[in-house]
């Protein structure tokens, strides 16, 4: 019995150790790729044609789902908030609260989730497939730098276009919240817009844009890095995609916490 427990403990320890090693190795890969991307950007080794190509994917591919998720969430919140506020005599605050929630938190996080599911997963699986089918090796033999061709443009597309997706999503979310408030709580649209105007701060918008830029860069970097480090076959491509999605979610939560602590604490 004692021997069995000892074996099980040892196996548990080995499993934990392998998980820790895997975590550190992924973190290391992301760190190395980030430094490599930074060096490329600082040396202006940027393939602008690819940046434009990836930006199209980043902005357009994720926009429908991003608008849908943010619009739906904003509507649900307005549906629950507006009647309650109206009952308490605070209907005039609906627009302001919606604007605060939408700009500071909801639009940027929800559009981040949309980007992870639509673009991040596609970056990871695409690059992982290229890696396991030796397309990245082929690039190296053809003397085309894979980091410059694959990772740098995607990273820049994320940094530049995530704020665009955020702005559009936030605007759409506020419009949806206004329409739902009008329908559910009989709040006049003029009141909603006036109240919303009071809740919109330029500082908040800039912080949210900066945050979304961090989100975009992080999602692109993690997704590309997880794909790039993939070796093996179809199973590993799937695992890399899952890892990219999980790590991106965690990274977004972490950045969100850091931004809240730094700017609003």
């Amino acid at each position, binding site marked *: 019995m004692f021997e069995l427990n000892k074996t099980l403990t040892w196996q548990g320890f080995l499993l934990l150790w392998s998980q820790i090693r895997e975590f550190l190795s992924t973190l290391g890969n992301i760190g190395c790729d980030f430094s490599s991307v930074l060096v490329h950007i600082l040396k202006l080794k940027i*393939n602008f044609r690819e940046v434009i190509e990836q930006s199209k994917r980043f902005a357009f591919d994720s926009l429908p789902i991003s608008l849908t998720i943010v619009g739906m969430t904003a509507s649900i919140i307005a549906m629950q908030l507006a009647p309650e506020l109206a009952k308490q005599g605070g209907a005039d605050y609906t627009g302001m609260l919606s604007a605060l929630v939408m700009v500071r938190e909801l639009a940027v996080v929800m559009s981040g989730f949309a980007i992870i599911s639509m673009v991040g997963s596609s970056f990871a699986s*695409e690059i992982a497939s290229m890696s396991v089918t030796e397309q990245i090796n082929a690039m190296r033999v053809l003397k085309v*730098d894979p980091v410059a061709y694959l990772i740098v443009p995607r990273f820049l597309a994320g940094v530049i276009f995530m704020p665009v997706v955020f702005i559009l999503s936030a605007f759409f979310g506020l419009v949806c919240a206004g329409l739902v408030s009008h329908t559910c709580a009989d709040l006049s649209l003029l009141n909603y817009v006036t109240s919303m105007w009071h809740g919109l701060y330029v500082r908040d918008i800039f912080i949210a844009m900066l945050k979304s830029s961090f989100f975009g860069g992080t999602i692109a970097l993690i997704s590309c890095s997880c794909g790039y480090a993939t070796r093996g076959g179809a199973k590993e491509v799937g695992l890399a995609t899952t890892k990219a999605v999980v790590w991106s979610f965690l990274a977004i939560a972490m950045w969100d916490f850091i931004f809240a602590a730094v700017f609003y604490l």
Partner: protein
Amino acid sequence: MSLEIKNLVKTFDNKKILNDISFKVENGQTLGVIGFSGSGKSTLLKIIAGILYEDSGEIIYPKNSEIAMAFQYSALFDFLNVYDNIAFPLVERKEFRGKYTQDEISQIVSEKLKMVGLEGIEEKYPSELSGGMQKRVGFARAIVTNPNIILYDEPTAGLDPVTSTMIEDYIVHLKKELNASCIVVTHQLSTIKRAVDNVIMLYQGNIVFSGSVQELLYGNNPYANQFVSASIHGPMNIATR
């Protein structure tokens, strides 16, 4: 252009994959590299191509040499069509960027496709091509920069005998056209017979045979004899593969 490998050593996870390998490929010659799966053939090719780094040893070739590699499964970029695949190095490689006009690139691509017997497929994507066609497009992409040294990794793997013969003919044809030195990693005796001048055989990271095709086929090296006769009995232990 000649290529010389001196005392090449490569280790993975404390296992020596290549153990002090040395050989030379003379200008315009084709060297065949044979051996069991896992004997280090592809690793050798990847080190020469610059995909992997050696632990120690030297790879000596003239400074202005251009090395190209045709991959086992072609490794065509599946998001690009045939034209863009072949034009890729001309468009994306730093030293070629802006060097060629669109018309010139188009002309070069057509010329290379003609060299591998494929014309009029520029708009097709790799997934629309047969295995043999993908290999030939891979060849066309490899030779688009007019290399002096061409590396072929299992060029006939997974192909039917007739297509294999055609591929072997193209290996010979391209070598003549480009006056290149070639290294062909293969398991196929037919490829050795048709497309290769000299052969080395790897076993457990060591060269166990080096000589001409005739010596491989009709000599008395026990390793070569076991490989040629496809026998499970001989100095090479199947269990260690």
